[in-house]
């Protein structure tokens, strides 16, 4: 009977830890801020923008495709992050485990996640943005057209 009781408790614990391990989406977190407040969450997405170093800690922003959430992490945790997303770069994909704050007392009421672990899932890269040849032609032809039109206008005005 005793072992059965412990087995049930173990199953429940595993079930609970699985819930936390399931990555939450930004919309899920933002729509249920009160439910997640102070709880451990796992959040996955692309590191974007600037990594802002503040003493021994840093702000990192992770966007899961909908919107970004600020991650407060010790500096050592973000040392692996090489690329953050912008026009020229695809940011590293990371999984963040940490505590979700609806209104963080430490950070002036900002909604954030205090990271306890950050794992790089896949590395980002420099994105080579090709120049659309059609745009080059269209740009040059339209410029010539405007210059010709302007010259024609001036010519008529002189007459």
């Amino acid at each position, binding site marked *: 009977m005793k072992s059965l009781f412990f087995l049930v408790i173990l199953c429940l614990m595993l079930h609970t830890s699985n819930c936390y391990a399931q990555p939450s989406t930004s919309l899920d977190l*933002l*729509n249920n*801020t*009160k439910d997640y407040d102070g709880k451990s969450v796992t959040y996955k997405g692309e590191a*974007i*923008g*600037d*990594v*802002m*170093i*503040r003493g021994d800690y*840093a*702000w990192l*922003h992770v*966007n899961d495709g909908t*919107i*970004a*959430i*600020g991650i407060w992490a010790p500096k050592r945790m973000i040392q692996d992050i090489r690329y953050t*997303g*912008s*026009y020229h770069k695809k940011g590293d994909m990371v999984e963040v485990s940490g505590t979700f704050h*609806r*209104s963080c*007392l430490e*950070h*002036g*009421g*900002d*909604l*954030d996640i205090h990271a306890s672990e950050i794992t790089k899932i896949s590395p980002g890269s420099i994105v080579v*943005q*090709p*120049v*659309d040849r059609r*745009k*080059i032609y*269209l*740009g040059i032809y*339209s*410029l010539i*057209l*405007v210059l010709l*039109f*302007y010259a024609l*206008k001036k010519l008529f005005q002189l007459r």
Partner: protein
Amino acid sequence: MILKPQVKDIKNIGYYLGRIILGIGLTMFLPFITGLVLFREPDPALDFLISANIAIFIGLALSWLCKTNKELNTGQAMVVIALSWLAAMALSAIPLLLSGHYKSFLDACFETMSGFTTTGLTLVQDLDHLSQSHNLWRHLGPFLGGQGIAIIAISFLVKGTGGMFNLYLGEGRDEKLVPNVINTARFIWAISIVYLILGTIVLGLIGISIGLKPQSAFFHGACIFMAGFDTAGFSPQSINILYYHSLTYEIVIIFFMVIGSFNFNLHYQIWKGNFKEIWNNIETRTFLFVIMIVTLITMVGLRQLGVYSDGVILFRKGFFQIISGQTTTGYMTIYAQQFLKEWGDLALIGIILSMALGGCACSTAGGIKMLRAGIIYKAFRQDIKRMMLSPSTVVAQKFHHIKTMFIEDAQVRAILIVTLGYFFLYALGTLVGVWLGYPFLEALFESTSAAGNVGLSCGITDTSMPAILKVAYIVEMWAGRLELMSVFALFGFFAAFVKGK
């Protein structure tokens, strides 16, 4: 009898419209050059070259075909202004559409109308990966539109003065800072550019101190200043001002939002050393009074629901959103979802009230305006006095705005008509929102934000919202920015075509 517009009227309108379109086209060379040289983004830069050429071609063609030496009368000027804002929206949307970050041309038009009218509601997709050139253009829109599209034309592109003053009036401004309207327009540019340089430096330096890389810090500084001082509320990152996690940054932004929402005439007085005007002016007094009232309502609402457990945080979050609403900027340090899910009805009503009343007249701010609110209050007080005193008593009510003046009934009537127009606009968007199935308070919040040119969102503004609502908000932003009169004039012009003789 309504007179049908003649060819000479259309030519007059076409000529000045062409000059303004030409001005819009020329401004596109700024993101083209910076994109090519500074940001090294050749593909986005080409979007601006193409769009600039289209705009310049249309502008040149219109001003050539409709060449005239006649000055604009008031009605024509208002039609020119109403049309030029629509033209600016459509032409400026081309580079945004070419960026691939907008789902449709309507979404791109929504963005540019939101930018030019200094609203700040956005439909951009994946903003965090948008090129710097396109981001610069998004922020340049409020800077040009905030000062006034006609101001560009008046300052640099057209000659004559009588017609110019009518153009100036058409954008909802009726105060000349100096006797000459061209010099007034140039002063508005001068003051804005000086503030732009100072603002970019200050925000750039703070940006570096909070961990942004220098180039990024100054780029963010310039963008945030343009959208803050011009009360638009756009930001280069998807989470708006929350991105910076800095009290200092927030305080400086509050300062820029407030001075941006002040009357240019007040700025002129301060530049002349007349600091007393700040306190004596009816607008600044009304502004302070309204801020106190809406702060009280919002704080009580937030406190009642225990949204923020800490008093300092309550004030920081609450006050930033209030100032953002009151100055009609729309910057946010909370997520849109938090407005709905956490703030509660009372706090939302406080914010709606601040958005509806708006900033000062002859500024970059939207809403009913503090000058009107102040005069309505004084007129109301005057009427109460009239009722209480004997009928033979003459009750005069004064107010101070640059100089001390007496309130006149005709002036109050004109103010009340515009105020009613704003209420009509707020109601129109709310009605469309409710009709489409949105809850009343959310629909009212978003509609007031659009028509008051604010930009705060409780989450309705999204690419997935119905096209009819996007169109309704575009009309609200346009009519709200032009203070309705130019829009009425345009409708009147079309009506004259049909019914005129």
